[in-house]
């Protein structure tokens, strides 16, 4: 059984902080299909449109009939462990520092035989397992065989924790505690056993609903944080940047305007200043410290979460300037992801549909509740997911966008 991890001891300040290393990251373009699905928490393999066989590893053609009519299909992951081994030596820097390392050979119910990382709670072969595709520290999909049934403290498995961004015992910054989403995030992350949470609040003289409730939580420290003020961001990063393990950027400025129903650029500029430049300021100031702590023990710097919007994929004209600012933020978040990857720090982008808040008051339901959004973020961290589309609206939009982006553009403009 997995030993429950205990609160990490205080760091010995005279020892050098271990530098981040990455597991092998090279993949073929075809193999990135596995990563694309794993980024959203799905395990997909290629299935042949001619003969129906499911194959692994991914290839350009069907290994049974040479057809190129291959498509990615979601897998249940059910399988049987045929053999296991423990690695005690590796010349790979990443694994060398994490030995011993357990590996298994699994026959999937859908056919293929796969080599997997093996969870500590899976008994000796033969044993039923559930294979999942997870992103490793290099951001690439790998297969992990998990026990077929949930076991106690399963998430605390030493190997599994290398693939997840579990908030347990980690220190978190939530950039905006003034919104219902921010407050739900703080509570959700603490329920997931985060060590402590810094909670930003801009314009501290404006009292906000929920402030009193936040203030009495012992693990919460309120910090003035206004993403439009570079000096403020810089000074906060100087103060706590070296301790933040998970940064959740939920600050956003949202007004419901298109181009024609608001004169001038002031509102749009304010949206860009928070939603786009705010992310840039945070990334410049907190990025370097987090990158330096990507392998800092049990509670290393591990994730950066951006609250984007499904409108980042396609413009919703009645919230047109907001959509544009989120599209800009998504593009920058991709840059951040590339820059954080060498340190193994995952950038998680969250694309909700309309949130049930005052700026979406006139939109009819369904609107995602702040609580559901927070739950989705915590789940994504625990499962190591990189792209999150929480709620029915986000899922539907994603589906329609994938199917035909031009059709969605026309539909949203209707």
């Amino acid at each position: 059984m997995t030993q429950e991890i205990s609160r990490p001891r205080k760091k010995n300040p005279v020892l050098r902080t271990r530098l981040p290393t990455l597991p092998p990251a090279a993949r073929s373009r075809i193999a990135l299909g596995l990563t694309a699905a794993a980024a959203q928490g799905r395990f997909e393999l290629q299935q042949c449109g001619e003969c129906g066989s499911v194959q692994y590893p991914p290839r350009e053609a069907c290994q049974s009939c040479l057809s190129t009519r291959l498509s990615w299909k979601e897998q249940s992951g059910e399988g049987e462990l045929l053999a296991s081994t423990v690695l005690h030596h590796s010349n790979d820097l990443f694994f060398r520092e994490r030995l011993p390392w357990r590996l298994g050979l699994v026959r999937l119910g859908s056919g293929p035989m796969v080599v997997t990382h093996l969870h500590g709670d899976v008994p000796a072969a033969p044993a039923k397992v559930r294979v999942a595709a997870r992103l490793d520290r290099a951001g690439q999909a790998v297969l992990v065989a998990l026990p077929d049934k949930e076991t106690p403290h399963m998430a605390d498995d030493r190997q599994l924790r290398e693939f997840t961004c579990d908030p347990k015992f980690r220190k978190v910054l939530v950039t905006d505690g003034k919104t219902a989403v921010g407050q739900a995030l703080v509570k959700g992350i603490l329920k997931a056993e985060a060590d402590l949470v810094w909670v930003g609040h801009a314009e501290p003289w404006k009292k906000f609903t929920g402030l009193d409730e936040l203030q009495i939580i012992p693990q919460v420290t309120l910090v003035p944080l206004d993403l439009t003020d570079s000096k403020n961001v810089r000074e906060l990063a100087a103060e706590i940047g070296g301790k933040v393990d998970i940064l959740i950027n939920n600050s956003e400025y949202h007004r419901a305007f298109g181009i024609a129903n608001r004169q001038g650029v002031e509102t749009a500029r304010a949206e860009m200043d928070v939603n786009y430049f705010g992310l840039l300021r945070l990334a410049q100031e907190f990025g370097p410290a987090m990158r330096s702590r990507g392998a800092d023990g049990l509670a290393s710097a591990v994730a950066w979460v951006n609250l984007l919007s499904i409108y980042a994929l396609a413009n919703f004209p009645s919230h047109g300037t907001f959509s544009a600012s989120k599209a800009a933020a998504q593009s920058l978040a991709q840059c951040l992801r590339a820059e954080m990857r060498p340190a193994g720090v995952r950038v998680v982008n969250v694309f909700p549909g309309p949130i049930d808040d005052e700026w979406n008051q006139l939109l009819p339901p369904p609107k995602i509740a702040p609580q559901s959004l927070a739950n989705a973020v915590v789940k994504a961290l625990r499962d190591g997911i990189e792209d999150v589309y929480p709620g029915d609206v986000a899922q539907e939009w994603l589906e329609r966008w994938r199917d035909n982006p031009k059709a969605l553009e026309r539909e949203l403009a209707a």
Partner: protein
Amino acid sequence: MNAVSSFIEAFASGKIRVVDLTQTLSPEFPYIALPPEMGQAWPFRIEEVSRYDERGPAWYWNNFSCGEHTGTHFDAPIHWVSGKDLPNTATDSIPPERFIGPACVLDCSRESAADPDFLLTVEFIKTWEKQHGQIPAKSWVLMRTDWSKRHDPVEYQNYDETGQHTPGPDVDAVKFLVAERDVLGFGTESIGTDAGQAYHLRPPYPCHYFMHGAGRYGLQCLTNLDQLPPTGAMVVAAPLKIRNGSGSPLRALALVSS
């Protein structure tokens, strides 16, 4: 000896002291807050262009941004709808001699400490005049509340769920100062020339409404008013020459006899 040479001589011999009435422009300094659905003034923000580094090896400089009504600032009559049709009411068209004027400093610090919603009344003004003489025409009337000593932005803004609570003049006091005393303008230490709850006065924001409606000016976020005598200080308050500007941050100075 002409008037300016007497001034130069007095200044050179240290008989005149300069009091800085200006708060430092910084991102932390509070700014006016409107309901979020309305257009918002920019707070003061500053970004480094270079600092003797690869962005500019031998020089240090910044870009800054802010609204016309940020920090210690000047309100021109065109700022308010009541003053919009008057002549020469914008920062570039106000005659420059209006930027220099004597000041009467009314000490309301005790009253404001006791009641953050304190309103300056005609009665208060007349009591002050009994002691210091009638407010001369074309004077600045500066309301000293010691509000500038509230260094914590939360204390300075003093919000609760009914809005802001800061002192200011009442409706009749403003009318009296304009009609009976022909003042140059009205200045305060808090974020506006009107009281925090002035939206509920009739008319709302009387100091803005009547002062600007009569072509008079406003100064707000002043500091160091406690260093000024009740009368006898000369205020120099020239806004930036923004074309058709409604106001501007400025360096407000007072000259006093030392």
